[in-house]
């Protein structure tokens, strides 16, 4: 079964790279949204460095959201989702593998781009490490909770917009603790560790809830 799942993750990653557009669009979106901010707020470097952690996090959430609704849709269209559902691996493991592939192909590239965008927003030098750390710890929650939204809207009309409405409320705790961990370093108030630990706990919890709920939703729709 492990082999099946590894093959599935590999297939999704190859698709993400070769199909083109998926990773590039998310990165481009992230870049352009962050570039728009100083244009809208005015180039006040002090203000920008104060709001930089929040802006980088919010833009990352939105960029990751873009690619969510394709997580199961393409497989549903060409029928491979039926094959996966009847295959040797349980559907819960399949959804977990697909969420993992989404994290590797979206969460990690966005996290790697974030410090570069931090330069544009005049982020404090000492905040780069914590920012990357919180994003690496928090982005799994985005992919795994997002898989629930993607699975629920598989057959829905206007699926893309609906995913945002369903999933963003679930992202709020991740956002709050991700930003408060970075802000604790930027504003030097202490309290990085508790916020970071809660953020990791949210991610670990979503690793359990996400695949279970996503598999339940897909099973209902394939019947």
């Amino acid at each position: 079964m492990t082999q099946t799942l590894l093959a599935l993750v590999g297939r999704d990653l190859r698709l993400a790279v070769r199909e083109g557009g998926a990773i590039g669009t998310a990165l481009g979106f992230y870049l352009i949204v962050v570039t728009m901010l100083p244009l809208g707020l005015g180039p006040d470097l002090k203000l920008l460095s104060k709001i930089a952690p929040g802006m980088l996090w919010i833009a990352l959430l939105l960029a990751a959201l873009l690619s969510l609704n394709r997580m199961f849709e393409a497989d549903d269209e060409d029928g491979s989702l039926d094959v996966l559902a009847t295959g040797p691996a349980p559907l819960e493991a399949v959804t977990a593998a697909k969420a993992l592939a989404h994290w590797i192909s979206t969460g990690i590239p966005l996290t790697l781009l974030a410090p570069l965008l931090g330069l544009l927003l005049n982020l404090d030098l000492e905040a780069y490490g914590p920012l990357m750390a919180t994003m690496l710890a928090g982005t799994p929650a985005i992919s795994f909770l997002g898989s629930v939204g993607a699975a629920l809207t598989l057959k829905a009309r206007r699926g893309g917009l609906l995913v945002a409405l369903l999933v963003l409320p679930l992202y709020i705790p991740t956002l709050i603790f991700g930003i408060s961990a970075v802000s604790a370093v930027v504003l030097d108030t202490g309290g990085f560790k508790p916020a970071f630990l809660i953020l990791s706990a949210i991610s670990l919890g979503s690793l359990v809830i996400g695949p279970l709920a996503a598999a339940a939703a897909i099973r209902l729709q394939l019947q």
Partner: protein
Amino acid sequence: MQTQSITQKLANPTRFMYLSGKILPWLAGAALLCIAYGVLLGFQTPPDYQQGETVKIMFIHVPAAWLAMMGYGLVAVSSFGLLVFRHPLADVSAKSAAPIGAAFTLLALVTGSLWGKPTWGTYWQWDARMTSVLILFFLYLGLMALRSSLEDEALAGKLSAVLALVGVIILPVIKFSVDWWNTLHQPAGVMKGALDPVFLQPLLISAIGFSLAFFALHMQAMRNEILRRRVKARQVMEVDRASHEQGAQA
């Protein structure tokens, strides 16, 4: 002979319609009386030494906030009943409870905001309790949006149930948010005897009245939903019959 539990007996929609038709007028009447009495008592309370007259908002705000959470609890329990026990009325119950719960959540947010302006000096503060109740409101909206976006009603019900069960995590977060993060909103004091009996009495009567009103609204909404489904089933049958007749003639 095997005895049936109440939930099993109610699984028959016709029996539910009969029973709820009997109960509903009494439930609605009791709710009206309780709320009226609670309002009357509320207006007779003396002004609070700190909050002044604004303390009266509590008689609406606190029950509304309780029911906002209870409403989501009802949606979640119904969803569980649908997915696990396949109870035929569970989906009707979950569907009917969501808009009512959302309305009470909005009521709690609005009254809290109106109370916050004179007391805290601001309509809105991003503290833990308010933010988590706002998330609850968004969850309600998401549930309703998901349901309305699917053509197949049975599937829509089941998928909403999955989402409702995922969202259940918000309930303990709301409940303990005032204890975990010591931000602006004060911890609950009703059960700990922090409230003077002068204020406690109208609050409890108002809470009972609001709860009765919630159940009366929920019951009526369930009746409406059952009737709507019957009408739809009839229409489908009628269309089927007509198309068969046309087929026979041709």
